[in-house]
Structures are given as structure tokens and as C-alpha cells.
């Protein structure tokens, strides 16, 4: 028999957002608050650097770990912004998006029978990533009462201490939650007590609005047990260029690179040239986009408050996570697309703890947000 799906793959269901994508595609004047990427184009100087590199014919493979100049700038940026100290020689790995880095880490550090605890609701790739690596997944649902932060309580309630790995993502997709250093302390203590490794997805680190981002890897005793994932997709609006990276102790990077060198060789070269320029000269562009997101965030939170829809004050990424006005969030999201041509994604799609909520992306123009929220208001009346 040909193409018989592996058992591992068989246990990975098709993506839960597919259905909403199909419904939205059928609508003509759809305003989508259902996307997971910026509405901006990358800073022009980064695009220009990519074009120039193509003109110079710089289209060969790069070293497996990424261009040396890029790794140096990534290390400098991580140190200056987040107080993360990594050696560009052997503690930085440049990958095809944070997505690839996550996949490498799941495969590099798990055997069948290992357990990965995943703080949820969360980005859609962690559970399949762990499953395809042969690991078992333990759901750790966070709670609206905690503003969707990860607490010792929910870790204990989920029995996360038995897991080998803890995956967390702050600022969070889909909730927009962030965590302060004080809130991260008990999580770090929990990981140390149970001798867990931590996968910290920090792709939204540049997009916080109430306090600066703290990486869990900067907490005591955490650097040696943490892989930090980040990239250029969100802060620099470079999603389609597919560039991310992992920061970790040398031995971990060496393991991940052993998969990467066979399966990817090197991350996209053109994107690496754009990224060098992005880190050298685009801090103002990032600040400008951040400001725009913050205004939209406040706008959306104000509008939901005016409509009487409960929404915790999300403070990062470009998502808010209001409570769904109907008991059935699937029915709500479907009817909203069909009757008002506004797309949002039901929270349960993003895993445990997300039910009863909607993910609303504000990475779209204020004019669109205004129109979409007026339509939502009409819809719930």
C-alpha cells in the first residue's frame, strides 16, 4: 500500500482555522480580524537591502547557522533589548522562521514517551510539533481570571511537573497576554524544581504596550534550560521572508543545527540580508508600527467596552481575546462572517482554555477596524 500515513501524522488533525478561512474566502467585502500577521510591509530599507543582495547575486547557501554578520547583530540586539547574553559563534541558530526552530527543538530533544507541557491557548504549531516528534502533549490551560498568564496553580493543576518540556509564548498569540518578570518567577521556579527544559516562543517580544518584555531565560538558573525562539516576522513585518532564530546554550544549538544542516542547509539568504539591514537601521520603523498597534489596541478595547463585551486588557502582540457574546463561539464566528462579512477566530481553536472567547486581530487599518467593529455592534444588537 502506498502513502499510508504514519501513525504520528495520523494523530495530527487538520488545522482548526481552515474552516473559517474557507468561509471568509467566499465573502466579497470581508474585513478580516482573523489574520496572524502584520498588515504593514517590511521597512523599505530592509526590502531594499534584499533587492540589492539579489542584484549582487548573493543567492548561495549561507553557513548552516546563518551569516556571521547576522548572528552578531542578533546577539547584540538580544543583549541590548532583553539582556539576553548569547555567543554569536555557537549559541545562535538562524532558521526558516521561528517555525523551523520550534520544529528542530521538538525533534532534537524528545523521544517517544517524553511529555511536552504546552501552555494554552497558544499558537497552532506546538502541539503538532511535539506530536510529530513522538512526544505526548499535556495541555496546560491558562485562565481569564489570571489574564491568561501562566501561574504555578495552573501548572500544578495540569500536572505539568511530570513533563520534560514546558512550552510558553508571551506576548501570546491568541490572547495578547504578556507576563512581567514577577509573574515569570514562579514559572521559572516550577521549571527548576521539576528539572524541565523550557521552550520560550518570544516572536512578539518587540510588541508590548504596558511594560517591556522580559525573557524567562534571563531569570536565575533558566538560561541553561531554555531555548528562546524569535524572528523577524512580527516586529519587522517580514512574515513571507521566512526568517527566525533560536538562542540557546551551545550544546542545544549544536543538536538543533545537526537536524537543520540536513533538512534545511541554511535559512533563506535574501531574507538574511534584509534582516541585517533591519537590525542595523530599522528601529524607528519598528517603533512606528508598535505605536500604531498600540492605538488600534486601545481603540478596539474601548469599542468592546462600549458594546458591553468583556475583554481583559491584552497588552502585547496584536490580538485581543474578548469573551464571545454567544455560548457557541463557532456559530457566532460563522454567522458573523456570513451576515456581516467580518472574520474572527473562535478561541477554542487555539487549545485548552480558549473556549468561550474570540481571537480578534488588530493588525489592520483603523478605518477597517472601525468598520468591522461597527458591524459587530450591529450584529450583536
Amino acid at each position, binding site marked *: 500500500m502506498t502513502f499510508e500515513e504514519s501513525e504520528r501524522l495520523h494523530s495530527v488533525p487538520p488545522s482548526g482555522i481552515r474552516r473559517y478561512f474557507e468561509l471568509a474566502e467566499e465573502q466579497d467585502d470581508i474585513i478580516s480580524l482573523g*489574520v496572524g500577521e502584520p498588515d504593514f510591509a517590511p521597512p523599505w530599507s530592509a526590502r531594499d537591502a534584499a533587492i540589492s543582495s539579489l542584484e549582487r547575486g548573493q543567492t548561495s547557501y549561507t553557513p548552516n547557522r546563518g551569516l556571521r554578520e547576522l548572528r552578531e547583530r542578533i546577539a547584540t540586539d538580544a543583549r541590548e533589548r532583553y539582556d539576553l547574553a548569547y555567543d554569536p559563534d555557537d549559541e545562535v541558530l538562524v532558521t526558516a522562521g521561528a517555525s523551523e526552530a520550534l520544529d528542530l527543538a521538538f525533534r532534537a530533544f524528545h523521544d517517544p514517551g517524553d511529555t511536552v507541557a504546552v501552555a494554552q491557548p497558544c499558537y497552532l504549531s506546538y502541539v503538532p510539533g511535539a506530536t510529530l516528534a513522538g512526544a505526548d502533549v499535556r495541555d496546560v490551560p491558562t485562565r481569564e481570571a489570571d489574564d491568561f498568564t501562566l501561574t504555578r496553580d495552573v501548572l500544578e493543576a495540569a500536572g505539568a511537573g511530570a513533563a520534560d518540556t514546558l512550552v510558553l509564548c508571551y506576548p501570546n498569540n491568541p490572547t495578547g497576554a504578556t507576563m512581567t518578570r514577577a509573574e515569570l518567577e514562579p514559572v521559572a521556579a516550577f521549571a527548576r524544581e521539576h528539572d524541565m527544559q523550557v521552550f520560550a516562543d518570544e516572536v512578539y517580544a518587540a510588541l508590548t504596550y504596558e511594560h517591556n518584555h522580559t525573557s524567562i531565560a534571563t531569570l536565575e538558573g533558566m538560561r541553561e534550560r531554555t531555548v528562546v525562539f524569535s524572528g523577524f516576522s512580527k516586529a519587522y513585518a517580514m512574515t513571507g521572508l521566512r526568517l527566525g532564530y533560536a538562542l540557546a546554550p551551545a550544546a542545544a544549538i549544536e543538536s538543533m543545527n545537526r537536524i537543520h544542516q540536513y533538512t534545511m542547509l541554511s535559512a533563506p539568504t535574501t531574507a538574511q540580508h534584509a534582516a541585517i539591514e533591519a537590525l542595523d537601521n530599522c528601529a524607528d520603523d519598528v517603533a512606528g508600527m508598535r505605536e500604531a498597534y498600540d*492605538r488600534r489596541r486601545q481603540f478596539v478595547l474601548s469599542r468592546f467596552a462600549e458594546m458591553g463585551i468583556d475583554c481583559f486588557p491584552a497588552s502585547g502582540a496584536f490580538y485581543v481575546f474578548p469573551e464571545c457574546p454567544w455560548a457557541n463561539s463557532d456559530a457566532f464566528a460563522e454567522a458573523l462572517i456570513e451576515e456581516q462579512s467580518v*472574520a474572527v477566530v473562535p478561541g477554542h481553536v487555539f487549545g485548552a482554555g480558549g473556549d468561550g472567547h474570540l481571537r480578534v486581530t488588530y493588525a489592520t487599518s*483603523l478605518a477597517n477596524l472601525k468598520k468591522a467593529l461597527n458591524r459587530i455592534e450591529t450584529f450583536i444588537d
Partner: protein
Amino acid sequence: MNSREEILALLRENARYSTEDLARQTGLAESEVEATIEDLETEGIIRGYQAVVDLDETEHEHVRATVELNVTLDRETGYDDIAARLAKFPEVQGLRLVSGDFDFQMEVEGDSMSEVSRFISEKVAPVPEITQTVTHYIMESYKERGVEFGDGHEDDRLSVSP
């Protein structure tokens, strides 16, 4: 950014934001937004509100030129005096003292090339302190006040994505 700077940044981005929408974006009360705008206006920080128009797309013909002006000063006449005199002409849309090879950069608008030329030769050149004028007619405008006149960045994102 304090609330004044924030309001100013938003109005420079889009002067048509309603008070309500400014309040929602900044977390200020509508009354605070109104008071802030009033202060900015009375202090002369906000001098006006205008649409950014692509004149080539309108029915009416418009001619615009930037004019470089060189002047000589004397004990009685300074830059400000010359500027005050020139700025009064309704044809003059912009007037700036600049560094470099010439003194003033002036923007002039009219209905036709001959009208603009006549204005320069009959009203501007005869001003005694003005020693030289160089007129550049604007042939095509690609970007005005931060707004690109191209087709813009199309939203090509998938309508729903993770």
C-alpha cells in the same frame, strides 16, 4: 509620548479622526481631547487642517512650481521682511528660508503656466531685494506630505491565518 504629542501625531496622520476616535485610541476622555486640540490651536502649534490632494487626478488644471529666490539684505530689510511681503500673495502656497545656494524656496500655484510665469515676473522679480529667481515647474508628483500617490500596498494576506 504625552497626550499633546499623541494627539498631534494622530492628527498629522489623519486630521479627520473624530474626537471620539481620538479618545478611543489614546485612552483620554473626549473632553480632554477637545481641550488639548483647542490649546494646540490657540498656541499656534496647529495652524490648519488640509486634505492631501493628487491635483493631477482632478478635472481642473493646476500648475505648480517651486521657485528659488536669492535676495540681498540691507540694514533696514531682513529675511522676515521680505518673507512677510511675499507670503501675502495668494499664489504663494509655501515659503521657506533654506540653507545652500539660494535663500528662499517658494511654492507657487496657479491655473496655467502663463499665469504662474506672469506672477513671478510681475510680482516677485520686481521686489527690490530679490536678485534672482529660478522657477521649476512641477511635472509629476509622487509623494506629498508623506502620502505616496502610487497604487499603494495591497493587502494580499490570507483572510484567516494562525
